[in-house]
């Protein structure tokens, strides 16, 4: 009798234990606010990108000489690549995409997209040279507007770590140059510093 009780207790414990293990392995998927603060790891993340974009857009749109120019007209700008000088793989095009989208939606600047130059050339060639397009409706070659300003910059970082602490400092620099004169009309920086500390048990 006692032996039977013991074996059933052992059996129940085993079942409960395996249930706990199975529950531990289960995953849960849920939608989150894309604009909420994200601190999953110390690496460059969405919050860093959003903070950089917000600072740069606010800064360029309220800089007095830029305000003066954009009050009169909507200048055309082209965005050069942002040089990634950090040791991480960071999609810097995503940063400039966010910045240029916000600036464009402010109604202050217009942009030319140099990443699509080859496709545009091919389409214009098709419209004008293939003989398949009614020439009354074909977009004419040589009538695109040249960019007046160029936006460019770089992202650098300094990483320091000990056994317990990792400290990352990011510096994002963005500039706007007047292409004809070569003068840098605006520049600003955004600094971000993040630190990760290991907990007591190194978890």
């Amino acid at each position, binding site marked *: 009798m006692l032996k039977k009780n013991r074996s059933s207790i052992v059996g129940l414990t085993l079942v409960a234990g395996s249930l706990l293990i199975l529950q531990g392995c289960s995953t849960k998927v849920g939608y989150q*606010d*894309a*604009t*909420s*603060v994200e601190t999953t790891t110390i690496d460059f993340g*969405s*919050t860093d990108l*959003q*903070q950089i974009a*917000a600072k740069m*857009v*606010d800064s360029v*749109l*309220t800089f007095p000489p830029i*305000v*003066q120019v*954009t*009050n009169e007209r909507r200048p055309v700008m082209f965005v050069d690549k942002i040089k990634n000088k950090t040791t991480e793989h960071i999609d810097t095009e995503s940063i400039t995409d966010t910045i240029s989208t*916000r600036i464009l*939606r*402010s*109604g*202050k600047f217009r942009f030319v997209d140099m990443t699509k130059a080859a496709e545009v050339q091919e389409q214009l060639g098709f419209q004008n040279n293939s003989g398949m397009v009614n020439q009354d409706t074909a977009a004419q070659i040589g009538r695109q507007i040249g960019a007046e300003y160029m936006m460019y910059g770089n992202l650098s970082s300094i990483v320091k770590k000990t056994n317990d602490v990792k400290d990352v400092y990011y510096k994002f620099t963005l500039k706007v140059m007047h292409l004809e004169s070569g003068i840098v009309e605006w520049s600003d920086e955004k600094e971000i510093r993040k630190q990760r500390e290991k907990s007591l048990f190194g978890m």
Partner: protein
Amino acid sequence: MRSPHYFAKGIAVLLLAASLVACSTSGIEAIGKPNDADVKKHLMIHSDALANKVTISDMRSRDVGGLLEVNLKLANLTSSDKAVEYRFSWFDADEFEVEAGTDAWTPVSLHGAQSVTVRGVAPNGSVKSYRLNVKGQ
């Protein structure tokens, strides 16, 4: 017997004094209490734990090249540290939200009784008013 002119002068002086008092209260903004109408209009606290513990004051706004620029102070009313996040919501003349969901939450740590300056620029020229959203981290 005092003349009606004397009373008229007295009333004029009282009115002038009353208008001066009104000017002095609107000129200097003390740390706003969460109930103040202006604070209520421009502040939305999304965490129960922060209710009546953080507030905004010194709200200033101006037009910069057709864009609304806002400058205000976000203050911790308690003596303990508060880790909060904030973001702006922007509204047009018809109270429709403009470019909803594009402003990201910004984290900020407020020490006891500390206030920090928060600045925001409207996403485009249609914006006429704003609201600061605050929540706990």
